[in-house]
């Protein structure tokens, strides 16, 4: 055994030195691989720092699935929410604030959304909307809403159901209106506007209930 006693004790003793060898590349690669999987794992299970999420649950939506559900229409409205994100949120935004700079009015605090009867909503979703419209005291005239409802995939029955779902979600979420719009009702309204061609205007809508 190499004994340290062969060296003189005290300040004369040689202190260790260090060489500047580089870190092996594979170690760095391993670090990044682990970081990647760590982030992925956290994204899957971590609940994104939400203090309400405890193991074994993973996220807030995950928790929501296990909440006792007393609302029979929840699934229908959730379906509407999904469709809204896919079809309407580009213009009206996920939060419903709209995009006033591009002539796209908000759905929040809109008398059109708060309107008791769903017919106008069904109509404008089906065929789109153009021309001046007053929303919450402001006139919007520069934009045109496309016939989003008509271009939804599916036959007439499916379209009506989807439009009813979207309308239900918008009315509940932005209009605080209870209940849902029945697909049958949407179908009936759509049957009534079968002969109308082109976009609606605000004036057209006012004639409906």
């Amino acid at each position, binding site marked *: *055994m190499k004994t340290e006693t062969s060296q003189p004790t005290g300040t004369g003793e040689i202190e260790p030195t260090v060489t500047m060898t580089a870190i092996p590349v594979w170690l760095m690669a391993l670090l990044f691989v682990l970081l990647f999987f760590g982030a992925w794992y*956290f994204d899957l299970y971590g609940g994104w720092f939400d203090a309400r999420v405890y193991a074994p649950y993973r996220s807030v939506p995950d928790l929501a699935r296990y909440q006792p559900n007393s609302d029979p229409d929840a699934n229908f409205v959730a379906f509407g929410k999904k469709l809204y994100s896919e079809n309407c949120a580009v213009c009206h935004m996920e939060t419903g604030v709209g995009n006033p700079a591009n002539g796209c009015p908000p759905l929040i605090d809109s008398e059109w959304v708060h309107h008791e009867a769903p017919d106008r909503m069904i109509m404008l979703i089906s065929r789109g909307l153009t021309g001046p419209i007053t929303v919450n005291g402001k006139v919007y005239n520069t934009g045109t809403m496309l016939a989003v409802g008509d271009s939804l995939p599916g036959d007439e029955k499916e379209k009506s159901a989807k439009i009813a779902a979207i309308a239900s979600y918008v009315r509940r979420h932005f209009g605080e209106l209870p209940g849902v719009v029945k697909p049958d009702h949407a179908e009936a309204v759509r049957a009534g506007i079968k002969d109308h061609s082109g976009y609606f205007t605000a004036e057209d809508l006012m004639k409906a209930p």
Partner: protein
Amino acid sequence: MTATTLPSPGPIDRSCRSPLFALFGGAAGWLALSSAFGLAAAMTFHNPALLAGCSVLTFGRAYPAWAHLFIYGFGVPTALGAGLWLLARLGRIKAMNPALITVGAKLWHVGVLVGLLGIVTGDSSGFEWLELPRYAAVILFLAFMLMTVWLFMTFSWRAEPRLYPSQWFVLAAVFWFIWIFSTAVFLLQMHPVRGVVQAAVAWWFAGNLLNVWLPLAGLAVTFYVLPKLSGKPLHSYYLALFIFVTVALFGSWTGMPVQAPLPAWMGIFSSTAAALMVVPALALGILVVKTSGGGDQPPCFGGVLCFAKFGAFMLILATLLAAVAACPVMARVTEFTWFTEGQVLLRLYGFFAMTLFAAVYHILPRISGREISPRRVRAHFWLAMPGSLLLALPLLAGGVRQGLRLADAAVPFQETARAAVLWVRISTLGETLIALGALVYLANVGWLILSHYRALLKREMTDALAWQPVEVKS
């Protein structure tokens, strides 16, 4: 074994003498006492009735007393002493104000004693690794600050401007301790936070203590002793820096069990961090092998170098085990079983204690000017090394077994608990070896310190005797 007297210590080593005697000497005593409490705690598993008549030796008090004495009695002062010497040696400067450091060291031991008395009389705080009551914590904190002020002074007045990795590790360890200890004492004992946050703080403290502070304080020694004793430079500056940064970064997130009743992100984040600790562990492996490995190295028979090398490998093993246990599949089995305990004990005895022994056996002969017989060091090694393995490995294996049985609804809980006792039996054997090793250590350290004073006394006497005739003659 050649000479028993070394060339007399240089001024730097002399300046460290009184603080290090106080720190190392007291710590060696606490370690022996801690092992005794550890054995008493283990006895409850084998014969619960044996010590039941004595409240001090019941599990609820002996176990915290063991933990308290190991960390605060043995670990912190020994690491601090080694750190002081490293800063002085590597900075080529005498320790600043050694007298005050010595006072701090004695105050520290008083604090440990007060804490111990508090714990055995039932005043323990109930937080793991922070069992000491808060009045003891205040004493410890003051003593620590008193010592570290002069540690920093020694560092900042150093004559050698170039830094060696050990210096960062020592300084970071000191800062880390101040930070986590004060935070934990404040949030758990002074102004206790409430509810879930309390558990989170306690786990945060334990994680930082075990997974950041121990590695920082221990590796400072490893990175000094390995290259010095194997006569080669430390393999890589960048790897050392890499270990330093990653341990501080990832280690500080570890500690929260995945299945703990805490918001999910805490446990998930923690286990991710534990998995990431694999990287510094591998880096350490490269560093150790490249620095002290190679054909020209003599085989390890139990010298100072063996302590340091074994310690480093056990840190790697413990870190890998912790990473494996952090995987969700494993965590479901091993969490809250003996496995965790085994991993922690491997870290404490296999890595930390062994590394500190290396430091003390390296440093003490230099500052006392007395050589210690390699036989005595070897005797200690061959008790402590198998002891730490026998202590930890059965618990690791038993923990997995226990976890699998706990998950099996067909096995009654009683039976699982009873089956685990077998593993605990083997591990108590290891603990006994460790306790014997601690006695040898105490004897070694005591012998070195006392023989220094004996030599001093003898020199005084001969001086006095030699002086008189001269006086007569003149």
